[in-house]
């Protein structure tokens, strides 16, 4: 999904990367499609209830002997925000970047044991 939000200082177009969100083993997992990202610009932040994922694509290193005859890929910045409504364990957030996919694993917080209320008669 391509939406031209705004341009940052580098004058890059920011696009919203495609994402799959699913539940597995009491975790909420987000798989974000972001190929060729510069890992130093990868940023995953949980601010109150908003999960913000940001990254910037690497600049292709093409040696000078080449000239471009067809271009479809472009250097972009990625940004996506999610509202997390479920209670999650904020200390156990994991993020892994592999093969162009960022996988963020949010562990659901332990459900509080229902308190048993004794009725005085």
């Amino acid at each position, binding site marked *: 999904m391509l939406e031209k939000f705004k341009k940052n200082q580098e004058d890059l177009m920011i696009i919203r990367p495609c994402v799959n969100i699913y539940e597995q083993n009491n975790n909420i997992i987000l798989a974000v499609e972001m190929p060729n990202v510069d890992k130093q610009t990868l940023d995953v932040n949980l601010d109150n209830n908003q999960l913000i994922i940001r990254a910037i694509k690497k600049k292709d290193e093409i040696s000078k002997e*080449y000239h471009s005859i067809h271009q*479809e890929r472009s250097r972009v910045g990625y940004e996506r925000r999610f509202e997390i409504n479920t209670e999650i364990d904020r200390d156990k957030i994991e993020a892994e970047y592999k093969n162009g996919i960022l996988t963020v694993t949010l562990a659901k917080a332990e459900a509080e044991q229902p308190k048993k209320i004794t009725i005085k008669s």
Partner: protein
Amino acid sequence: MALVPYKRDNWWVDPFSELENLQKQMNQLFDFSLSRNPFNDTTLLGGQWAPAIDVYDSKDNLLIKADLPGLSKDEIEVSIQDNNLLLKGEKKKDKEINEENYFKTERFYGSFFRTIPLPSAVDSANVDAKYEDGVLTLTLPKKEESKPKQITIDVK
């Protein structure tokens, strides 16, 4: 009553320029489907989606980069046939996850297929392929006879 939108900067109204414009637009419409640019020939019949590619040319090699995130190198198939590069593969759905466990699915799954016509003949035995961070990089060395040859002009 104006049938033609009033353009302030036309010092004279040239009815033929309007028709010419229309002709140009119709041409563009047909061009889109008949694709003059050979690289734009991504037929949707090939698969549900096709990767975005960049093609570079040098004296000795062709360089192709394709965005294919979330695959392993066993899921990508690269072959050369009749001077066309065939990129195909299949993104398989994760079997461990049931349909009802998904909150959101935006990523594409299924087979992808793209034919890239190569502007020069390449030595298919010596193609270098790398898959890193979701990007497939192919370096195809050109065959000797396809390399550009300098033609000396005799001036008499």
